[in-house]
């Protein structure tokens, strides 16, 4: 059934095409201050993913009807640049981007102390400049770093990572080929200090056993990513 069973993504030694162990992430670099005119910004390079996030605010929320009396509004946009993928992406309305923007906003709202800024707005802009599987995780991670860089108070950072399954093997942080031929994808948004979750999606086919392995891989990877983020923020939250 289907052709992907024929593509061998895991070698005899249990290693992946790019030499990683199943539980291993691609290389990740985080940098802040990449958008000089923003109040806070971060860039996450993660495999070939190149994602920036910029934060503007807190600022006055207008028109007034979007204001909330008891808290700030978090206005999050996730977007893929037209040149970020093999096939050019047409600018404009996009249901996938809208959904990712929504779940990203909800993940961040869970930690940002919005109640400190009533009637105001905080804009978070996530732009995928180059895409290679896992852009929503890179985006959430970049946004969390950009909020910290902007000095917006948060109860915890959010790091996000996805595990999945390919050739019947559960693996962490799928690269593009693994994503194309993979059987499942489980992205999670994790609070590194408490191990709690603020973001969860999943697509594909995972048995209950494989599901638990993927969950645990994500938890482990979150600690690793958190170290990189904390370094980038110069120990700001660690």
């Amino acid at each position, binding site marked *: 059934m289907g052709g992907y069973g024929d593509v061998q993504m895991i070698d005899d030694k249990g290693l992946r095409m790019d030499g990683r162990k199943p539980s291993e992430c691609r290389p990740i670099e985080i940098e802040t201050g990449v958008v000089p005119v923003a109040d806070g910004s971060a860039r996450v390079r993660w495999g070939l993913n190149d994602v920036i996030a910029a934060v503007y605010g807190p600022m006055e929320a207008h028109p007034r009807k979007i204001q909330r009396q008891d808290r700030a509004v978090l206005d999050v946009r996730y977007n893929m640049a037209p040149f970020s993928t093999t096939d050019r992406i047409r600018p404009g309305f996009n*249901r*996938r981007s*809208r*959904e990712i*923007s*929504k*779940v990203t906003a*909800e993940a961040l*709202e*869970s*930690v940002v102390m919005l109640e400190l800024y009533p009637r105001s707005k905080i804009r978070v802009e996530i732009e995928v400049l180059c895409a290679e599987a896992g852009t929503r995780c890179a985006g959430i991670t970049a946004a969390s770093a950009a909020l910290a860089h902007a000095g917006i108070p948060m109860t915890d950072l959010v790091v996000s990572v996805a595990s999945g399954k390919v050739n019947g093997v559960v693996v962490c942080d799928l690269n593009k080929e693994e994503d194309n031929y993979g059987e*499942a994808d*489980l992205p999670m948004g994790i*609070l590194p200090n408490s*191990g*709690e*979750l*603020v*973001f*969860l*999606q*999943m*697509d*594909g*086919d*995972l*048995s*209950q056993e494989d*599901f638990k392995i993927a*969950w645990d891989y994500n*938890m482990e990877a979150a600690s690793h990513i958190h170290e990189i983020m904390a370094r980038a923020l110069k120990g700001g939250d660690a």
Partner: protein
Amino acid sequence: MSIPLVPELLRKHLADLAESDLRIDGRGRFESREISLEVGILPRAEGSARVQMGNTIVLAGVKFQLMTPYPDRPNQGGLMCSAEVRPVAGRSWEPGPPSPQSIELGRVVDRGIRESGCIDVDELCIIPGERAWQVILDVFAISDDGNLFDAFALAGIAALRSAIVPAERFEIGEDYPLPVSKTPTMCSYHRVGGRYVLDASKKEELGGDERIHITLGDDGHVHSLQKGLKGIFTTDEFEEIMEHAIERCSELRDLVNNAIEK
């Protein structure tokens, strides 16, 4: 006892009830409202279903179109799931372009069905590279009293399972039932008064926090997950609801099977 209408008071009221492990309409934590499921109720659709869960009512209809396969997948037909909520369904659903709420609902329902692989798009091909069937599932809310996600998913899979490919109308052979190899079902848990409950009503949604949607396949495999709204949850909390979902999704699957066999 009257139910408060102000969100903050409603929230407090639900929390008070939760302390005694009660729900606003007397149900148990993991008890659903009464469900009815009928198929074949829309004469112009090739497959259809109606689901009622308490005062939540939804319809699903399946239509078929001919399409030219995409050049890079010449042996495949198409499956499209569309689910917007129009303002008929409740006071809070506004007219206008699809809201983020409506888009999320549509995409989560779509993924639960698509990712289970229950429709084999290869089987929808008629002449490779030239003609194939496109299956279009439209789910439609009549009355939203909470938990549209589960109602949509249930009506959607039941409508697909009841669908007849209208080959005669398109003059390409005899009509036959659409092959649907699996019956993915969804159940959703909302945090209300601090703990997760099954099949939240509209009032519980209004006074609650985040929600988690779980779609499981025939063998208990996970096909789709989604956490929605602001909120933080733990691995332990998730494991508890997943355990319940395995049982509940199986019950819903029986409901579909029974409706189809009738």
